[in-house]
């Protein structure tokens, strides 16, 4: 299939269809509106259903209902809306249902701003909602990668019966880039699941529930879930190493679109005779800790760059394990650190290496 120029939000919508997702529930919020708008037009063309909801709370419970009857389902929102979806995310995880949730992050907290940010890394990877569960969280850095990871999101959600979040910094949704889709009109439907509520004809009735009042049973359920999460961490963690073949003193860590700015800075630094490596987690949950540690230990010092106040920093510090210092440079509120900002921060980190500053 030839490449076409597409806006990120619309490309994610099309990618969902290519993954065989024909059901979308959503509530308008900037900066993701192009995604539901696209699907409201596109889904009926391929026999699918688009439903505009009354709130993100309702949305998260509608996708709970849709996932529970064994169909592929997606929603999208942005930061404040994702906060409201926390309820449904916890119930999806508790009832072990597959669903894909897109978060085109904007600046926070509160109503804050509508410009791109990486303000929900901590919410997505740690404090999503009540209870013991983990999301799988994928963070694309280009429109093409957003397409590929959308398709992967559905695969992972179904394989592990776990909700998956596609975590894009608003820019991913808003920018246009050439993309290529799998050469299918609509992906195949979800395989018949032995847990889905499809009517009990010819079998015993089924239950989709997150309620376990017996503490022993709930303890076991949660242990099972985290054993499954360990498998996900061992098999599904994805990352990118950039410019890490040549020796480097400074390793930059960044995710999403921020990594693209860092790449440009790394190219400019090359011109100055400075080799800087970069580690980018593609799955921010599970975080590729071992791979990150390996890249960190080849450096003398780390510079973490984010469009927030340092939400991924703790994961980088854990990977550094006290053996390397980690500097942080971030902007938020809708500002993005520039190439010049990154270069300046790299020089500052280099100065600390030379000066022996802890």
């Amino acid at each position, binding site marked *: 299939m030839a490449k076409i120029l597409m806006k990120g939000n619309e490309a994610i919508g099309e990618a969902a269809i290519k993954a065989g997702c024909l*059901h979308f*529930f959503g509530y308008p919020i900037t900066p993701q509106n192009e995604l539901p708008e696209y699907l409201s037009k596109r889904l009926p063309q391929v026999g699918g*259903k688009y*439903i505009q*909801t*009354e*709130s993100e*709370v*309702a*949305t998260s*419970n*509608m*996708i*709970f*209902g*849709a*996932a*529970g*009857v064994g*169909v592929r*389902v997606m929603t999208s929102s942005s930061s404040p809306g994702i906060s409201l979806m926390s*309820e*449904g995310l916890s*119930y999806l995880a508790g*009832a072990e249902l597959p669903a894909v949730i897109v978060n085109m992050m904007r600046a926070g907290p509160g109503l804050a701003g509508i410009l791109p940010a990486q303000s929900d890394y901590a919410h997505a990877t740690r404090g999503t909602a009540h209870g013991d569960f983990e999301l799988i969280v994928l963070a694309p850095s280009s429109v093409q990668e957003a397409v590929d990871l959308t398709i992967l999101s559905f695969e992972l959600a179904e394989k592990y019966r776990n909700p998956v979040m596609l975590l894009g910094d608003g820019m991913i949704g808003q920018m246009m880039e050439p993309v290529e889709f799998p050469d299918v009109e609509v992906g195949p439907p979800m395989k018949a699941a032995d847990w889905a*509520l*499809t*009517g*009990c*004809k*010819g079998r015993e*009735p*089924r*239950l*989709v*529930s*997150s*309620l376990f009042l017996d503490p022993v049973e709930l303890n076991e359920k949660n242990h099972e879930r985290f054993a499954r999460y360990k498998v996900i961490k061992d098999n599904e963690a994805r990352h990118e190493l950039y410019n890490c073949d040549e020796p480097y003193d400074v390793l930059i860590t960044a995710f999403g679109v921020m990594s693209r700015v860092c790449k440009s800075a790394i190219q400019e630094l090359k011109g100055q005779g400075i080799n800087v490596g970069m580690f980018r987690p593609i799955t921010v949950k599970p975080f590729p800790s071992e791979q990150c540690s390996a890249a960190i230990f080849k450096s003398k010092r780390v510079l973490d760059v984010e469009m927030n106040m340092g939400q991924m920093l703790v994961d980088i510090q854990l990977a550094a394990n006290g053996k390397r210092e980690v500097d942080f440079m971030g902007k938020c509120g809708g500002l993005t650190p520039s190439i010049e900002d990154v270069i300046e921060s790299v020089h500052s980190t280099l100065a600390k290496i030379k000066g022996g500053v802890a």
Partner: protein
Amino acid sequence: MRKIFSHTEGMITDPMHYCPGCTHGIIHRLVGETLIELGIRERAVGISPVGCSVFTYKYFRCDMFQASHGRAPAVATGAKRCRPELVVFCYQGDGDLAAIGTSEIIHAANRGEKITCIFVNNAIYGMTGGQMAPTTIPGQRTSTTPGGRNVAEDGFPLKMSEILSQLQTPGYIARVSMHSPAEIIKAKQIVRKAFEYQVSNTCFSFVEFLSTCPTNWGMSPVDSLNWMKTNMLPYYPLGEHKIPEKHEGGSR
């Protein structure tokens, strides 16, 4: 000897957890019988709420969800829109539907979701120990209105059937009562009608049951039924509040 009464195949015969004198058991049975009479048990999906009827999933012999507090109509929307061949019903109490879930029920009704909602109104939060509900009667004493519901501060009880009947979207909205066998027989016909409207893909359907809570009202089951008849019926008029045939706008 001829057997003239038995369990309905629409329900599981395990003992229920409801308090003595509670009418949930009868309401369950009316729904269970309807699933069998209409031949829809094998394509039915029910949704349990949060509240006294949280364990509803243990009693119906069909596929069941357990939903979060107040969101059963949203869960039902997700299920029904994705598998329209299913017969989807919600079973909710007054706190679940008329307080935390007000938004979900109004919008599900307004979208004309082809689902059936069973709403049990006993004017109190039962599961949590008898607090004021959105449907608590003016002056009614509860654990959080020790002096009786004060309408100057708490407002008047919500009449959900009347509220939903205001919507332009066609729907079937009825209120029934559990205070006598005659009323229970009438209620059965209305439950059946509500499910038939879904099966024929006609409209959203909603049946409000006036019910009791002997435990939290602090009365015997018989006194509770009498109290309900005296105090709830005047405020919550029974009958079909809305039928789709009489409404303009047509079916979707």
